[in-house]
């Protein structure tokens, strides 16, 4: 309880300050937090009891958005980890595609939205493509780095015991690379949130991003702010869940090695 208070005291304090400031300023662009809360309640939590009080907006916009976020992230994870492990264990292949990867990851993903709109036409596919292309890199590069860093003794141990290839990849390379892969997954998850919103800003009227834009265009500022706060809460929740999962998956790590692993992207 004490720790909980400690963690949230500053947050709560700032909300109070914000409330007082906005009350004092009385500016329509900056509604009070209480107003935002009321707007949020009206937007999302005033539905029928049968739907757990969730409104249609939640079902029509929030869930699809979150679905695309997870979908894009999951596709990127599968591609990134499998490709990364393959490249990480093959120095020659990594050498060949290194410059290509560095080039591609340098392209700001939002710029590709128009390209993907042409290629995939407007809709879920284009949005998924945007997310996948944007969040693939941290996962891929971390996986390459992790797979590459399996130490020579583990390699020789596996060779001497004639560990079959699938067991070697799944039982030695993947666990060795896991801490780095998880670091990549976390960076990518927060990026997914950004790209989900970005991909919903053009050519669609579906999703949290588009709803935010609509609210802003209609000068419905409490609704707009509510959307922003929803995104923040979503990001926080996703990170917390992934972190809990990571702790569980990497529970084997010696305590002193358990870092708040945020390995930055490394160049190939």
């Amino acid at each position, binding site marked *: 309880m004490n720790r909980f208070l400690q963690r949230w005291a500053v947050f709560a304090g700032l909300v109070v300050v914000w409330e007082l400031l906005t009350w004092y300023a009385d500016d329509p662009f900056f509604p009070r937090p209480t107003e935002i809360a009321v707007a949020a309640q009206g937007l999302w939590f005033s539905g029928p009891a049968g739907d757990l009080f969730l409104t249609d907006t939640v079902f029509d916009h929030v869930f699809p958005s979150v679905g695309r976020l997870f979908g894009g992230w999951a596709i990127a994870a599968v591609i990134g980890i499998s490709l990364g492990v393959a490249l990480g264990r093959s120095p020659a292949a990594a050498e060949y595609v290194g410059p290509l990867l560095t080039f591609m990851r340098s392209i700001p993903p939002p710029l590709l939205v128009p390209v993907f709109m042409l290629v995939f036409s407007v809709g879920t596919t284009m949005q998924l493509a945007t997310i996948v292309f944007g969040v693939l890199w941290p996962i891929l590069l971390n996986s390459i780095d992790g797979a590459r860093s399996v130490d020579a*003794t583990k390699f*020789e141990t596996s060779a001497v015991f004639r560990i079959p290839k699938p067991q070697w990849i799944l039982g030695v390379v993947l666990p060795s690379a896991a801490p780095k892969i998880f670091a990549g997954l976390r960076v990518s998850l927060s990026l997914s949130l950004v790209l989900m919103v970005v991909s919903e800003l053009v050519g669609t009227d579906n999703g949290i991003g588009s709803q935010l834009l609509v609210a802003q265009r209609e000068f419905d500022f409490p609704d707009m702010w509510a959307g922003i706060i929803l995104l923040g809460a979503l990001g926080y929740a996703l990170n917390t869940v992934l972190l809990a999962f990571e702790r569980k998956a990497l529970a*084997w790590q010696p305590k002193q090695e358990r870092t708040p692993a945020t390995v930055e992207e490394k160049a190939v």
Partner: protein
Amino acid sequence: MTAMLEVADLGHTYQAKDGAHTAIADLSFTVGTGELVCVVGPSGCGKSTLLRTISGLIRPTRGEISLHGNEVRGVPDDLAVVFQDYSRSLFPWLTVQKNVEFPLRRSLGRAARRTRAAEALEWVGLAEAGRKYPWQLSGGMQQRVAIARALAYRPALLLMDEPFASVDAQTRFELEDLLLKVRTEQDTTVLVVTHDIDESVYLGDRILVLSTSPASVVADLKVDLPAQRDQITTRESEAFVALRGEVARLLNVGKTSEEVRARRKANEQQAAKWAEAERAEASRAEAEERAGTT
């Protein structure tokens, strides 16, 4: 006594852009079934190359190696290695029990693996530690896990690469006695590579003394000590002292003439330079091997 391992006219030369390096010149020896042979040599003399050729990780440029009569091409099916660096050779994400079971997954079902691993852990006195993770154990215990893993594999030949070089002196004595105990109980054929003269005399039935690089066998000494050895009385015995003196003389230990020192230094520099080439060759050979089998 039949020969488990036969090494005949073995030679290995590493090729690189800026020259060639002969790590092993001309090595021939045999290890009989059930024997414990220690290979002792100065650092950088090609011991690790020898170990890698026997374990099939690299193919020697000359000569032949055969294990129970079969020529070694690629890693043999029934050979296990205990490496010096236990903290790296064990898998930290697996429990002790799972570590021992890991190499058995290829050939045994779940229940059989479990009993074999438990049995091997009991041999090394770690029956209670199966559910712990390696890093929760002391260094000496971790090396015991590595030994258990090798024994559970039921190898025809157990290779040990400086197995006790990374533990403190007290633990080293314990592990030496443990090795002697299990190898008698399990009737294992063992080849121990070490740079520790006392250890080679204490452990071995025979000692192969290697020259400086390129390695060749300088002497093949029989250890005339009773099979039952004791860290205190054996080490005090005349036979022990005489033998360790002989090995030390063969290795030029303690001679600090300018010439010897210079040669030793050059040798070590060479070794450092070619350590990389060695590893690279080992992983290349391994990759080819895998490509061939899958």
